[in-house]
């Protein structure tokens, strides 16, 4: 199987969906002639032209709202946010319009739109550019949110997101764009709402999404090598819909859970996972559920400190050892 980057995997998914469906159009800042601020859309404008790949001015509320309006008519826009942090100036459009219009119309309207872009800390760009709003989106019934951790998942989930008839917020990670994974050449689609066991184990479950999955995998290696603890790593992949059964199944298997989450802890995704576990698998637990989140302050610029503000394998190991 060829090794390709997370970035290329997304690029392939976009190209394949443009070819498959004439209503798919990519719109965003620098997506066309500039080839994408992070090169996710590289070559697509040259290949598919002005109609299918559209450069938007810096005007997120305007063009995201425009995409939502077009999606009500059956266009399937894939909107790029250079950073998900910039979604905050388009928040009314995303939450109130994409998120609520189906409900308020009593089911007469649907918005088959994808809003995608990176949502991560760890690149020393300061607090305004380092937001991880998957918990905010997941708190909005009507929206779906997906956070792929690998190139394989990014491609398969993107294809599912574009084909979905509801609005999907797709959150990538700039630190993963250049990382490579094996991705098959034949077509595949990964359904939303299906978690994936990235590493099997028996002693403790490390439950994560996005880049935190890679942090959990590194922690699992340390736990195995240094402590003889066999950790299972469950990648949620999509936050809403959520594969709750997979969460409960791994906890019932290992009886211990450490949740690894690049959200801030207060009302972060892992808070919801913890609540689910205590409510539905309380008797299966041999220890309290632990969480490793981004340290609870605005994202710091300092290149020395930002890496330790995010969840680290070492912090995960400490939490796991506390309960194993």
């Amino acid at each position, binding site marked *: 199987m060829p090794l390709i980057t997370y970035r290329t995997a997304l690029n392939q998914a976009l190209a394949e969906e443009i070819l498959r469906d004439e209503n798919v159009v990519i719109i965003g800042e620098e997506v066309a002639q500039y080839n994408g601020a992070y090169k996710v859309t590289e070559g697509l404008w040259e290949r598919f032209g002005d109609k299918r790949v559209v450069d938007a001015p810096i*005007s997120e509320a305007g063009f995201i709202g425009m995409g939502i309006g*077009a999606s009500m008519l059956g266009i399937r826009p894939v909107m790029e946010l250079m950073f998900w942090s910039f979604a905050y100036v388009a928040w009314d459009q995303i939450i109130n319009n994409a998120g609520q219009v189906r409900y308020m119309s009593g*089911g007469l309207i649907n918005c088959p739109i994808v809003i995608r872009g990176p949502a991560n800390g760890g690149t020393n760009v300061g607090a305004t550019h380092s937001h991880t709003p998957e918990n905010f989106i997941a708190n909005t019934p009507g929206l779906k949110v997906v956070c792929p951790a690998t190139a394989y998942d990014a491609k398969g989930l993107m294809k599912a997101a574009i084909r979905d008839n509801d609005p999907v917020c797709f959150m990538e990670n700039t630190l993963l764009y250049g990382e490579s994974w094996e991705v098959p050449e034949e077509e595949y689609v990964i359904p939303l709402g299906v978690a994936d066991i990235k590493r099997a184990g028996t002693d403790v479950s490390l439950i994560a999404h996005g880049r935190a999955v890679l942090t959990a995998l590194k922690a699992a290696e340390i736990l195995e090598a240094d402590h003889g603890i066999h950790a299972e790593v469950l990648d949620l992949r999509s936050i809403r819909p959520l594969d709750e059964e997979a969460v409960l199944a791994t906890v019932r298997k290992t009886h211990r859970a450490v949740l690894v989450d690049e959200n801030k802890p207060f009302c972060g995704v892992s808070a*919801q996972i913890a609540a689910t576990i205590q409510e539905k698998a309380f008797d299966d637990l041999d220890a309290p559920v632990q969480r490793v989140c981004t340290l609870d302050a605005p994202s710091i610029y300092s290149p020395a400190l930002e890496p330790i503000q995010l969840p680290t394998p070492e912090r995960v190991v400490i939490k796991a050892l506390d309960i194993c």
Partner: protein
Amino acid sequence: MSETKTAATEPVDYARAEINSALGAAEKIRFFSEMLRIRRFEQTALKYYNQGKMGGFLHLYIGQEAVALGTVSLMGKNDHVITAYRDHGHALAVGMDMKACMAELLGKATGCSRGKGGSMHYFAPDKNYWGGHGIVAGQTPLGLGLAYGVKYKGLKGCCLCFLGDGAVNQGSYHESLNLAALWKLPVIYVIENNQYSMGTSMERSSAMRNCLAERAEGYGIAWDVANGEDFYEVRAKTWNAIRRAHDESLPFVLEVDTYRYYGHSVADANAKKYRSADEIEHYKTHHDPIRLWRKRLVDEKVLTEESADEIDAAVKQEVAEAAQFALDSEDPAPETIFEDVYWEVDNQTEVGQTGRHFFGD
């Protein structure tokens, strides 16, 4: 084509405009009846609101009826309409069922949004009517997107996107104007200028040279101002904008001067403080669009006073029946709370049945 509000212009009889001179008597009478339907519907809604039968807000359109009907009566099959929360007039003008509209106000299962939207959120995609939006100017990018969709599909059509004078200072509207001009999208922004953004007069809220529409100049967008009490003028000037949108795929900003008799919403506690009773009475007496249209049709000998009264009586009867329908309808069942959230769930697709979509119990 653009004009300033202050410029002295020769009076124009817009009845002679091509789009109006082609109108037959039956159509003119229908417009009278449709405007009356909006007014009588809302007067009845007000009664129920004051009786505590409705929740939330009720933003009445009374006084502005000629704007909705004058514009919407020009729509063809690829023309779309979207508006803000003062949306009953546009909804009835596009032909939404009055019973379903009244039932929605009462939050009933038979409401046009199954009791999920309320007064501010009427929708009828089958009639190219896309709401009914509660956040001021939030609908302006959506209207742009409807125009984008029409153009993307290669259709000859446009979107009439309504906003109030209180919406013109929101960023999303300006972003929409920029994109509309930049990408030559066939969207027509109709500013229904009723002079007050809630309790703040235009003079206290909007910086401008002569009028609000003139701001379009800065984006290179054509604009005009229409007198909203003159049904013929609203139609003539809207048709001009629609033709540009259809033939040249160009945006337009049309400001329509109008007036609302009631407060921003019925819950507007200061509705009679920020303007005088005399001012309101003056509009009702001299500028009421329905009264003026009725007089016009009588003068044209299209209507007699007696036939106009008969139409009014029939409309009142229709409204009474709609109200009875709404009162008699059932409240929505509790399980419908989880319906109409996700298309995939509602349609029981494999996608909609994969993973957990709803949380809580």
